[in-house]
């Protein structure tokens, strides 16, 4: 079957989703990111890999943090970075997505970083580039609808490997709004591909997708049960708009059942790490004492995220 992310030699040419990527590519990205960690610690935090290349950040949906880390990553690779404030530009004048892409290609774009509210938008762009014969232009998905957020999934895997060394013995719990979370979806595919034996999903019935068991995920509605003896806890952000949609009674009620408190965290293994993709809602999904505590690795995740995005961009741009 044709995999739009891989070229004819089976090398990564776009990063659209973790689903469908072989373990060797995920491992290659994590290994390469480890080398980029060292670059960010130098006086001169730059390598010349993407010198003369143009990276366009196309954020059709707002995200300051993700856009900033992509921008820093591209700049540390010596690329020129252009941030398009797409809401205020051509799209609002009625230009179609693919017309925007054609115009940017005419400006000699080499790589698009795309965040879009519609699932599949980055696929559409990658397919279009293939149809017009521009296999020298690459696409990195920075989050599409509810579908995927592959670089977040990869930086989560980097974080886990950094603290736990390998994946083969781990019990990992993902807690919260899994139904609406592209991060959760990418994490589940990545954890499974990298050989984590037990992935758990914890959340209220209204916020868990059906058929999670088909992905090999163990489902828990009771956090006290689900957190027992886990090595890694991945908390998800509760999006406020879910509260109004009758999926949940109230933030307070949610925190009582699914907020990560020091008491609940004590059920996990003593050396368990706590992750969160940010931005956090303190007092909604996570207690401040946990967020600022010794087991939280939430800020290291952000630092690792830059190295992972440098790895992804340099790998796709070279293939």
């Amino acid at each position, binding site marked *: 079957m044709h995999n739009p992310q891989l070229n004819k030699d089976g*090398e990564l040419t776009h990063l659209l989703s973790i689903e469908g990527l072989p373990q060797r590519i995920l491992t*290659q990205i994590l*290994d*390469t990111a*480890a*080398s980029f*960690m*060292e*670059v960010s610690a*130098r*006086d*001169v935090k*730059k*390598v*010349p*890999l993407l010198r003369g290349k143009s990276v366009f950040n196309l954020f059709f949906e707002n995200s300051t943090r993700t856009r900033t880390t992509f921008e820093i990553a591209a700049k540390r690779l010596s690329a020129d970075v252009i941030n398009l404030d797409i809401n205020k530009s051509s799209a609002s004048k009625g230009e179609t997505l693919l017309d925007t892409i054609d115009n940017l290609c005419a400006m000699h774009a080499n790589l698009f970083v795309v965040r879009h509210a519609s699932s599949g938008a980055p696929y559409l762009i990658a397919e279009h580039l293939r149809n017009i014969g521009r296999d020298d232009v690459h696409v990195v998905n920075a989050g599409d609808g509810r579908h995927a957020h592959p670089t977040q999934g990869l930086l989560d895997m980097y974080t886990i490997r950094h603290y736990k060394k390998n994946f083969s013995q781990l019990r990992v719990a993902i807690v919260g709004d899994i139904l609406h979370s592209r991060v959760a979806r990418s994490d589940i595919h990545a954890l499974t591909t990298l050989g984590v034996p037990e992935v758990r999903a914890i959340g209220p019935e209204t916020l868990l997708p059906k058929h999670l068991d088909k992905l090999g995920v163990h489902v828990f509605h009771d956090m006290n049960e689900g957190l027992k003896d886990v090595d890694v806890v991945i908390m998800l952000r509760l999006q406020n708009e879910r509260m109004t949609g009758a999926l949940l009674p109230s933030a307070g009620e949610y925190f009582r059942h699914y907020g990560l408190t020091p008491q609940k965290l004590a059920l996990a293994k003593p050396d368990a790490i706590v992750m969160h993709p940010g931005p956090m809602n303190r007092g909604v999904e996570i207690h401040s004492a946990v967020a600022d505590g010794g087991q939280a690795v939430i800020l290291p995740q952000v630092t690792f995220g830059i190295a992972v995005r440098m790895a992804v961009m*340099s*790998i796709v*741009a*070279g*293939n």
Partner: protein
Amino acid sequence: MSPLPNPLPDAEAQCRQLADLIRPQLHHSPALIGIYSGGAWIAERLKELLGLPEDIGLIDVSFYRDDFAEKGLHPQVKPTVIPFDVEGRHLILVDDVLYTGRTTRAALNELFDYGRPASVTLAVLADRGGRELPIGATWCVWNVDLSDGENLVLGRQDDGQLAWRLENA
């Protein structure tokens, strides 16, 4: 240049010869930097043979190569680790085989992103000619002729001993 001997020379003995060549320069208190992977092994050997107290530096030039546009990123990049301040130091860059000179060029560029060394010299076990850049080794123990399709590869055996092998591209 001499043709390839059979059997191939003893790489461990060559390391000792290389150390003998470098020994007179130790009053500069130079620091060793090995280029992955062969150069890193040789630099480790030189540290022992010369009795240098300081950890060696390790350099992977993948992020500085000039063939990225054609070949892409090397699939196995290792982290560069320079455990000392490069600024003002006398550095000895160590590699196994000197050929086109492009790896040396990339390593020099990477080193200068860490600071401005007082000097950089190049120590290699083998020089096979075929230079494409104006680069030469300061110390070399073996000049050898190889044809284009042949590659001299330094390996480390299970017992930790370094040994040459010949590969045909």
